[in-house]
């Protein structure tokens, strides 16, 4: 038998001009989080030269990673995003891997009230896929993807949230890269704007993009946002963060985004009394104020 030559994948070779014709326009998808929409930007040519213009949300069709240690506000952030999108009429698939759908639904309802959103509109646009209760969705990626494809076709879904992808490779972290790659390719094939929550392990540096599965998630997805928290424990911290000793402060940073420009500062993130997250000033701004 003769050794078969490696094939040439001709369609994979494209002129930039041709690729540009089918390139989607990057526009902002409102995040539902106060202070976050302005942190992603694009550049426009004006008479005065190139100018930075806020995108007004996450870049459309981006598949983004939101990572952090426990109790930093990851789920709150993706829930606000899902609610905001559903409230403005865009169908959203919310794959819940940690909390069973019924419990998530009640949390979403109280969150929608806090955000003063039209809950009736949300109810008809938010589709919950309960991977927390059904092991086949959690443990068999083809079943999850087939079910998602079914939901996307049935409800014309444009936005997908998975909270969290770490639950899809629990106890088999060596599969993380392969699983995340399949999910990423799927989201791209179906033109989804997607947010994936991933969890950090105790050994990970808190403000880095590293999460369960190592850097696999951050490497594959289009961008990463990181959340962390810190106890105010010294007078220096008090001066810097403008908070009393003993108080907990949450921090937010966009680690990277392939699809558009983004703010690179570390920001203070607050959870309001009504249980919503909002992005506050950057540490640089706080430092300037304190000096």
């Amino acid at each position, binding site marked *: 038998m003769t050794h*078969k030559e490696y094939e040439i994948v001709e369609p994979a070779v494209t002129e930039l001009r041709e690729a540009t014709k089918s390139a989607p326009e990057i526009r902002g998808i409102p995040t539902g989080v106060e202070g976050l929409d302005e942190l992603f930007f694009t550049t426009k040519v004006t008479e005065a030269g190139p100018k930075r213009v806020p995108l007004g949300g996450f870049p459309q069709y981006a598949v983004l990673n939101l990572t952090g240690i426990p109790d930093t506000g990851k789920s709150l952030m993706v829930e606000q995003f899902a609610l905001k999108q559903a409230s403005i009429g865009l169908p959203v698939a919310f794959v819940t891997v940690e909390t069973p759908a019924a419990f998530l639904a009640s949390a*979403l309802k109280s969150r929608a009230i806090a955000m003063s959103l039209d809950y009736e509109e949300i109810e008809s646009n938010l589709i919950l896929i309960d991977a927390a209760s059904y092991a086949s969705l959690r443990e*068999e990626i083809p079943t999850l993807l087939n079910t998602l494809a079914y939901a996307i076709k049935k409800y014309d879904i444009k936005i997908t949230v998975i909270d969290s992808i770490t639950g899809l490779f629990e106890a088999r972290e060596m599969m993380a890269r392969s699983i995340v790659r399949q999910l990423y390719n799927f989201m791209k094939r179906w033109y989804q704007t997607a947010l994936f929550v991933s969890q950090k392990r105790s050994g990970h540096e808190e403000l880095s993009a590293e999460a369960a599965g190592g850097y696999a998630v951050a490497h594959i997805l289009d961008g990463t946002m990181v959340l962390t928290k810190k106890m105010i424990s010294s007078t220096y911290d008090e001066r810097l963060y403008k908070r009393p000793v003993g108080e907990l402060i949450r921090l937010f940073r966009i680690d990277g985004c392939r699809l558009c420009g983004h703010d690179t500062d570390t920001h203070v993130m607050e959870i309001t009394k009504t249980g919503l997250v909002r992005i506050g000033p950057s540490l640089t701004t706080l430092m300037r104020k304190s000096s």
Partner: protein
Amino acid sequence: MAILKPDEIQRPDVDSTAIQVFLKTLEILGGPKKLITYRNLTWLPSLFEAAYVVVLANDYQKTEAEIAEYLGITRQTVRNILRADTETVMKRLEGELQEKTLKAHIAGGLAKLAYEKLKSSS
């Protein structure tokens, strides 16, 4: 807020994926006629077995023990299939065509190669 019902969970058919991988291995080997010509039809069960192992490991993230139990084969056979080297399998195939029994790591290499080709074209 709609919650997807249990009967809306879309479980893909393992059998049909394994059949696709199996057919791709035949294509890589040069087609069924080549196996008939070389009197190697006895390879077919091993190729089918390897196709299932590769699909269960890659698509369903099943462990070696789970695959062995599911297919009723030994863990060692599963291991040999999954650790087969796709780079060298085509070179080693030349000598193997004279053999009536297909070694697990050759069948595994072919199945893995077929699986990769199917995934890259989908």
